[in-house]
């Protein structure tokens, strides 16, 4: 790798990795999930989801700071024993492999429905996966640079579209801001929190951070920016369309881009521009979850390099991506898998953190 510095990643880089990981495919159906849970109180549910998601992220960061030289796949062995730790690692590998495949498939479905109608969905999916697989063969430093590079390209257009669309928004659509079905809200909160699971990637970054103590700040910045963006998207779409109309749209965010035009009709619809940006957003998300899976595999088998697995994993991920039968089925699977995954991404770190705290285990701090 040729890098003499073993801990090259800065606090800001960590934050950008988090943001560009969190903004991904989930952005398109997000308003639909939120509105199904609470109608006009969708922004509130989104906030609950963000709150829930930050618990998981903050727990992981806390653990990472406590064990600054190890990833969750290493310190879990020390906290709950080798056997249980291995089981945990296996679950994480399985879950993120599935998450990668579902994200790739969701991407493929959007593309085949709205842009490239005669390109087979398999081709779109495999192109994206191969791209991710090739990119994950690079060391962590380059992984961080890639996220860094794409970060502004994700942020600016989404913010722009949301601000421009506020022109057509009506406050009445966002009222009342309270909800009436606690059970639906609870499920919706989980569904939205599940969109934030990519933040798990923080666990492999902290051991390479120049100053692991600053990881907490990076996490907070990351979740605030990504969460803020989610919130803006939900509020803008509900404000423009109204809750009932969103229930009739499969990808409200894309529809929002379609309904928004640049001032003076420079561009009458922004969906093409938005999709171009969104492809990079999906790529960075896929990159992170794929990378995380590889890294976990590497540490499971105690290998030196994670590159070996990048192409071995590819056929499995692709195969899983092709399993859902249709779009409706796909979204059913995504919602279920996402909520079940919270056990792995939230409950598991919570147990680890609790035990680490009770047993007073901590990693060797940086010398």
């Amino acid at each position, binding site marked *: 790798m040729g890098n003499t510095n073993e801990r090259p990643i800065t606090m800001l880089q960590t934050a950008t990795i988090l943001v560009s990981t969190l903004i991904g495919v989930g952005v398109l159906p997000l308003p639909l999930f939120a509105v199904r849970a609470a109608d006009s109180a969708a922004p509130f549910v989104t906030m609950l989801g963000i709150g829930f998601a930050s618990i998981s992220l903050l727990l992981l960061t806390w653990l990472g700071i406590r064990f600054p030289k190890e990833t969750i796949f290493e310190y879990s062995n020390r906290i709950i024993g080798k056997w249980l730790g291995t089981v945990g690692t296996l679950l994480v590998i399985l879950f993120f492999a599935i998450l990668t495949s579902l994200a790739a498939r969701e991407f493929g479905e959007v593309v085949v429905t709205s842009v490239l109608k005669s390109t087979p969905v398999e081709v779109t999916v495999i192109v994206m996966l191969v791209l991710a697989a090739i990119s994950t063969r690079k060391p962590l430093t380059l992984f961080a640079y890639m996220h860094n590079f794409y970060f502004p390209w994700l942020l600016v257009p989404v913010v722009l579209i949301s601000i421009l669309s506020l022109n057509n928004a009506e406050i009445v659509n966002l009222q009342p801001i309270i909800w009436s079905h606690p059970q639906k809200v609870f499920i919706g909160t989980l569904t939205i929190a599940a969109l934030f699971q990519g933040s798990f990637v923080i666990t492999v970054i902290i051991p390479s951070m120049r100053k692991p103590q600053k990881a907490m700040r990076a996490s907070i910045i990351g979740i605030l920016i990504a969460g803020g963006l989610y919130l803006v998207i939900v509020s803008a779409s509900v404000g423009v369309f109204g809750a*009932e109309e969103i229930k009739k749209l499969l990808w409200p965010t894309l529809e929002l881009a379609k309904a928004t035009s640049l001032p003076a009709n420079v561009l009458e619809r922004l969906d093409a521009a938005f999709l171009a940006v969104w492809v990079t957003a999906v790529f960075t998300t896929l990159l992170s979850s794929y990378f995380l899976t590889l890294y976990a595999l590497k540490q499971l088998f105690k290998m030196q390099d994670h590159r070996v697995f990048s192409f071995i994993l590819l056929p499995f991920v692709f195969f899983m991506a092709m399993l859902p039968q249709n779009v409706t089925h796909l979204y059913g699977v995504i919602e279920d898998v996402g909520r079940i995954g919270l056990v792995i991404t939230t409950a598991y770190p919570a147990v680890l953190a609790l035990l680490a705290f009770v047993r007073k285990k901590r990693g060797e701090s940086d010398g």
Partner: protein
Amino acid sequence: MDRRGLLARLRLLAAALLLTPLLSGCWDRLEIDERAVVLGVSIDEATEGDERESEISHVKGSLPPPKHGLVKVGVQIALPGRIPLGPGEGGGGTDPSQTLWVIHVVGHSIDDAFMNLQQQVSSKLFFGHLRIIAVSEAVARKGMENINDYFRRNSEVRRMAWLMVTKGKASSLMTAAPKLERIPTLFLMSTLDNSIRMGKFPKDFIGIYWSNSSKKGQEGFLPYVILKDEQNVEISGLAYFRSEKMVGSTKPMEVAGYLGLKGVNPAGYRAVVMLDEDDPDSAVMTNVTHRQSKIKLSLKDGMPHFHIQVELEANLEEKLSEHLAINDPSVIQQIERKQSETSVKFYQNIIKQTQAKGSDIFGFGEQIRSKKPAYWSREIGTKEKWQEMYKETTFDVEVVVKIRRIGMKAT
């Protein structure tokens, strides 16, 4: 040495192979001249005389057609290369038959009709530039479900297109030849866009209509247009809906009522004010320049009650006789008072008219849903319930008219 050379060559070959997907182009390549760009669509009920359709997306026996009644769909396809881009080109080619191709087909549903059409047109139909969808009143009164569903599902259609209801046949709008623009649909579009700018019509693109008609406490409405003798198009009111069915239409002036009640700016309607009903000489015309409205919701005996305050700023534009002295402030006050009085009646009439049909195009129900959510979920809750309740809702209208300017004449 030899082996290394071979390896290098193999590598080169592999690299060249990587380029092939780039050279072969895109799966979805569709050159612009292979597209049939649809600019406008009209939807009518099929009548007796219409040609019998062939069985293209259904076959008698095995794949029976839906029993929904036939629709007659007309499309306006732009002829590639024929549409002059600048004003100088083409030399007065105002005849739309040179730039456009209008075809009519019959089908059991919108998609069926388009497929019948596709069977007759070599190029692939492309809806990305679709600007106008005209629906005849008869179809709108039967219900818009099929139309809304098809165009919402289609990813090419923009939410900024115009959907409109025509009095009489919608297909005549496709063949109309207005003099101002070379393409009839563009003329229609600019008519509507300009009327928004002049304050004569609310923003009501297809996307807004969809959103409004989805809402529980609001109904959708569409522009109601009539083709006149000179091939020009008159926006002659709002066609208002109840759920997916058109239930009535307003008069052109009543669009101003809608705009006033909603406080939409800029304002642009003129109104006749008669200071004395029996004296024809006492009439003046005012031009409303600015509207503002406040809607206050309260509950009276368990029923929603709205108090609507409308403030209009107006200019005096003309008077019909010399014996009114406009330079007298008391006369202006008199005009203001008179216009306020008549406006109250005018606004109330419009509300009553929509109430009779149970079609709340103003979104009063949305006000209840958002401001009094507990009451809404206890008493109303569904769209159907609100449609009934709207009929019994009470309204108070208060109008304040302020005349600011009188033009260049002193009296």
